[in-house]
């Protein structure tokens, strides 16, 4: 059965483009251009994945409300935020809406497809509890589950988005190796933008520091990028 994707986007050209591309991939796509239409539809039936724009028509934060509504209905429903503003990424992160990923709109369709596929894989893995080959990355107290795209620090789950998961994975896979911003973005399957990487790293550090105050394994190598600093 085809996966149902809800696309809430007030810019018709974009939503149609995304929809046509997604349909080609075999997804069933439903487009909503305002908050109310989307909520009405979600009352009847929840999609398998939701892509939300933050600003919807006259409501600059309409996307947040839909996200809260969906999270209230289902804790496992994958949600991706699309935004035109980098600065909004921090807002979304700060609100702790439980979104699985947040991306800027200049991301390419290929990248978006990769994310959607990854999220569905995570859901499948979680739901079916498939007896897959164990795939873990473990560095210090960090443990990354490559099948479920989940992370934990000292066995406490880390609430990180998919992009953050891939960045963390790229760093932790080769401790001590410097990863440039370009490499990190490539790993995260996102557009190359220095400041976006910087803010993703910042958010990641913040999330781990919330669990361990003295965390300083993600080290900035000025002029180059970042690296996972192994514990002495």
């Amino acid at each position: 059965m085809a996966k149902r994707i809800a696309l809430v986007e007030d810019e018709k050209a974009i939503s149609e483009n995304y929809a046509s591309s997604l349909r080609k991939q075999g997804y069933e796509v439903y487009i909503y251009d305002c908050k109310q239409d989307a909520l009405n539809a979600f009352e009847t039936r929840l999609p398998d994945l939701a892509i939300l724009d933050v600003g919807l028509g006259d409501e600059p934060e309409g996307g947040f409300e839909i996200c809260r509504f969906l999270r209230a209905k289902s804790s496992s429903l994958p949600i991706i935020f699309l935004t035109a503003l980098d600065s909004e990424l921090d807002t979304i992160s700060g609100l702790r809406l439980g979104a699985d990923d947040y991306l800027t709109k200049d991301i390419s369709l290929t990248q978006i497809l990769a994310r959607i596929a990854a999220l569905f894989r995570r859901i499948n893995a979680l739901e079916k509890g498939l007896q897959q080959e164990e795939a873990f990355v473990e560095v210090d107290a960090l443990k990354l589950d490559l099948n479920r795209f989940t992370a934990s620090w000292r066995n406490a789950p880390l609430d990180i988005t998919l992009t953050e998961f891939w960045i963390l994975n790229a760093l932790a896979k080769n401790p001590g190796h410097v990863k440039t911003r370009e490499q990190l973005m490539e790993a995260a399957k996102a557009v190359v933008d220095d400041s976006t990487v910087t803010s993703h790293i910042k958010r990641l550090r913040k999330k781990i520091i919330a669990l361990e105050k003295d965390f300083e394994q993600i080290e900035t190598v000025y002029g180059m990028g970042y690296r996972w600093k192994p514990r002495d």
Partner: protein
Amino acid sequence: MIKLFSPSSWNLKSKFLSILLLILLIPLASIGLLKEIENALFEQLKSSLLLSSKMLAEQLSQNEKWFYDSLLPEKNKSSSKELFVFPLNENFELDGYFEEWVDFEKHRQYFNTKNHSMGLLLGNLERHLFLSIQINDPHLIYKNAQVQGLADGLQIDFETLGLKPKDTQIQSIYLSPTISGNVSVLVKNNHAMKIDWRYKASWIATNNGYSIEIKFPSGIKPQLLKVTHKNVDRERQKNYQSINSSGRYAMNPLVWPSQKIINFSKHLALKKAQRIWILDRQGRVLTSQGKLGLSSTKVSSNPILQWLLAAPAKALIDRRANALHLDSVQIYRAQRGQASTFVERYKNSDQAVAIASYPIKNNGEVLGVLLLEENVAKVQLLQKKALLNMFAVALAIFLLVIFLVYWYVSRMVSRIQHLKSSIDQVVDQQGRMKEPLQIEDLQGDEIDDLYAAFYQMGSRLYDYNDHLEKLASRLSHELRTPIAIVRSSLDNLLISCNDAEDRIIIQRALDGNQRLGDIINRMKQASGVKDAMQTASLEKVNFVQFLTQVISSYQSSFKDYSFKLSINQLDKSQNIAPDLFAEMLDKLISNAMSFCDPSSPIVISAEQKDKLVCLKVINKGPTIDKKNRKRIFHSLVSIRNKQQSTGNNLGLGLYVVKLIAEFHQAKVKVENLQDDSGVAFCILWQQVDCNAKS
């Protein structure tokens, strides 16, 4: 000191106060005015004196009889002293004591011999002539019935004027005291001495002689008189050693003003400090009334003002007080029939007396002179009082004006300072507005207008600054959606396109779109850095290691260029925000790479003198004109020629450098190398004590 003498550098308050001091010139100017008023008052006083004297003189003229009644002997007719007859007080008592004569004692005339003297004073009361005679005689010989011989005695000869010359006769009276008390007055009658009971006399022995008062019968008005003290010093002395009031064959003329003239002067209502003199035509004083002294010369009850304004009141030196004769040019003129008036000033004193002299004439004949004096101190007192009033009023006004102006200027200054501090609060050191100017819009004076103008200017400037700063960010936001549309459309095409040629074309369109996206990202760089600065904080960093790391990473990233790090006497620890500092270096080095000559290295040098740290990024290549050295750090300013331009340079890189430098309280400047072979960008900052901070 220099500041003190250049008024342009004074503050507003000093300027206003110095202008205010000019008010002090008003009292100074008024002093000149007061002098003129004084002169006018003098003139007025003189004319009023003249008028009064004229009036009085005319009254006297109408009573010419009074002058004819008076005995006014012609001067120079007799060589003997004139004897003045003074008006005596009504409660006169004939007792030999001279207390009733006290007022006239100064006019007592003395006649002396070797060991003796005789003092004479004449008086007049109710048509009676009185004589007061004082004899100094250490050896009094009384008349003794038992002893035959001479005794001390007085002989008074006098000539009374009859209606006809033949009636004129000389009479003599004799007194020879025996004991203190009433003395009989003898007259010669047929060669025998007889007591004339009409005469009365009272005699008193003193330590050094005796004194005697003699009262003449009513109506006897001698024209000439002679007193002889017949002196005997030893008993049985054969001859007298007489003292005469005049020569042996002469008599003293009597000056005897009419009682009516005296009464006239007595009943005049004279003003304070006024004195009237009535003189006969020869300048003899017939009578004088009034005193020149003022009862009070106090100007103010305030001792300070009194001291300031009134010279210590010296008693007027009245030279004429006791005069029996007056003589001056003015009197001389009056004697010739001319009225005159003048102010008599005393040397070494500010005291003065205004005098008016007027002739008393009858049928063209000058009978006498009327002299009216007034102490000018009264005018001066008036002047001083006016000065005091003016001083008080001027002082009050001055204080009020100073207070008002001070209050006004203080208010104005505080309002201007308030405006300045409001502006200082919202404008940072670099002249950027941090927030809109909050000034209430008042409808008042020019300062309120200034406030309003500043407010308008400030809010427009703020809006403009805000607009400029947000423009790039907003623009990037607005452009992102259409770019996203183009991108997703192209992506869709690419996914469904199988034709290799088409795919190349689509890929080109995607590349162009990507570049457009990059430009937009750069556009919001400045606002991104500003956002970052809000959360960034300075931390203690091993600066040498930091620089080494950054430079080595550049070397590894950009293998076509060579980098050289030169560190000179630099403290290892510096307080910086590493992310921002790295970004600043990033911009500087990328700028250097755009312009440098690839054959020569880009030099990054850091050195420290005392606490001043200087970081330089030096590259060989084109120099920068002097006029552009400040401009290149401005927002959206790019000075590159076509070859140097990569196409998406927005002129924000060096602006970001400036922002980050300012965040570190550092100065940024650019200079050409000495040999003009390239440029050096310098970041200069004062090292903060790391230990204190950390």
